[in-house]
């Protein structure tokens, strides 16, 4: 950020006359817009992927009809434009607010959720230089800022003034607060090994090919840590099999029951942006981040800086595929099973991995 401002000030364009503060504000707004746009596009792609993957897992075809509309190519494309059409439909829909709802809170709740997710992208390392703010507490910042998402969810539940919404919001609050504990604890495992909370330090500690990735170090402790982290973040994102807050068979749509049109689209957007965030987060922590899996093979060709965003996005997409796979394979958990998993399975194992790695590093 500082370097970028310096570079712009030194350049001979019309922007060089602006003060540091003005440039900083311009860049913040710009980055925010870029991330919001990227999140929206990602959500479109991931929703399409989810529908296709689920369809093929269930021996169906999924969306096939909405294609380009060009006469000869009409039926080619596997319905790629379906989610685009859906998004336009959502934007054009009437925005319904229930009479008994708290209008202001009903309006801001989805945006709190969305902001909490988007803000975390500001420290995500898409490459060695491709990070908005490589702050020295990066990992911790993500944990802190994403904990705001629960406020958006329970507000949505309460402001709708609907019993299903309220129950969904309550469930979500209990679930997210519980699963924050194991997901925060296992981050410590990696932080202990690297000795830094900065994302780029963590990624660079894994440079040199697939065998240097954290997931394969301290075998099997880090592998267990990865599994715990994956499950806990899955629960924090309210994804199946942990999607009790919006269990459609019991709660209609949970906290999102009374939402329609654009505001409902924001909820949807946040969920898929959150999945992408988790993908980037886990691959930076455990799967080598933006480093290539080949190390110095192929003459270090894949280690060139241009490949960095490609690698981390590929790894993130792989994790997202895993999340979708689980969603369409496993049945939903019961509430008591959900709490049991967090407090009696994941949390003790997280402590075991921390303790084990600590002992291993000591001797």
């Amino acid at each position, binding site marked *: 950020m500082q370097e970028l401002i310096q570079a712009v000030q030194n350049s001979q364009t019309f922007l060089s006359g602006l003060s540091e*503060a003005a440039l900083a504000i311009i860049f913040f707004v710009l980055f925010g817009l870029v991330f919001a746009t990227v999140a929206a596009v990602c959500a479109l792609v991931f929703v399409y992927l989810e529908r296709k993957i689920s369809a093929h897992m269930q021996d169906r075809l999924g969306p096939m009809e909405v294609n380009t509309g060009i006469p000869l190519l009409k039926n080619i494309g596997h319905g790629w434009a379906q989610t685009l059409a859906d998004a336009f439909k959502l934007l054009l829909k009437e925005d319904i607010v229930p009479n008994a709802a708290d209008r202001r809170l009903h309006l801001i709740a989805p945006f709190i959720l969305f902001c909490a997710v988007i803000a975390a992208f500001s420290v995500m390392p898409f490459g060695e230089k491709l990070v908005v703010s490589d702050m020295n507490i990066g990992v911790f910042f993500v944990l*802190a800022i994403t904990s705001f998402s*629960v406020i958006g969810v329970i507000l949505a539940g*309460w402001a709708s003034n609907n019993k299903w919404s309220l129950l969904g919001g309550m469930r979500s609050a209990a679930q997210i*607060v519980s699963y924050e504990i194991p997901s925060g604890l296992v981050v410590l495992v990696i932080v202990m090994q690297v000795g830094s909370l900065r994302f780029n330090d963590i990624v660079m500690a894994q440079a040199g090919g697939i065998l240097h990735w954290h997931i394969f170090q301290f075998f099997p402790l880090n592998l267990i840590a990865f599994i715990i982290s994956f499950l806990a973040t899955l629960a924090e994102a309210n994804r199946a099999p942990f999607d009790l807050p919006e269990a459609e068979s019991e709660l209609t749509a949970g906290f999102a029951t009374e939402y329609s049109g654009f505001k409902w689209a924001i909820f949807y957007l946040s969920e898929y942006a959150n999945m992408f965030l988790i993908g980037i987060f886990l691959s930076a922590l455990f799967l080598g981040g933006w480093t290539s899996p080949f190390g110095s093979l192929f003459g270090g060709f894949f280690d060139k800086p241009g490949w960095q965003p490609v690698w981390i996005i590929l790894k993130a997409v792989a994790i997202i595929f895993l999340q979708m796979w689980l969603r369409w394979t496993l049945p939903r958990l019961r509430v008591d099973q959900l709490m*049991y998993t967090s407090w009696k399975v994941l949390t003790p194992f997280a402590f075991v991995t921390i303790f084990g790695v600590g002992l291993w590093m000591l001797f």
Partner: protein
Amino acid sequence: MQEILFFVLAAVAVLSALGMLLNKNPVYSVLLLIVTLFSIAGLYVLLNASFIAAVHLIVYAGAIMVLFLFVIMLLDIRADVEHINLKRLSRILALLATFIFLGETFLIIWMSLKGKAAFVGLGEGILGDVPSVGELLFTKYLLPFEIASVLLLVAIVGAIILAKRKLRPEPPAA
């Protein structure tokens, strides 16, 4: 830049705190308190204490405020709870707390006028990052740190005992 940010954050903190006190709807009050805590975290960042800021956000905004919201929503306290009957004892306590706070404020102003208190300028702090906090906790402030952790442990055990007081035969788990 830092001065502008400081004044914006300070103004937001004070205004939202006032709003929290004056608002009749408890849910709005909690939300405004979250805004206050958020801007105070911003002030910590301006003092180079980014670690403290993140802890502040996780503990207060992420956990405690969620608990507040939870309780308020479960009890369904609505805006029509108009008259909050302050007992005489709590009035006396409130007065006492106000006087202590005012006294501290005047003490600090007085000491700074005399040049006795050391103040950290914006962006000059060195005590808020991870290594320095950790080092202080495990050397200079080891005893208070351990006492605080024992206190937390007692609180956790107490919470479990309270929650499990009416022990029923457990439903078959998993």
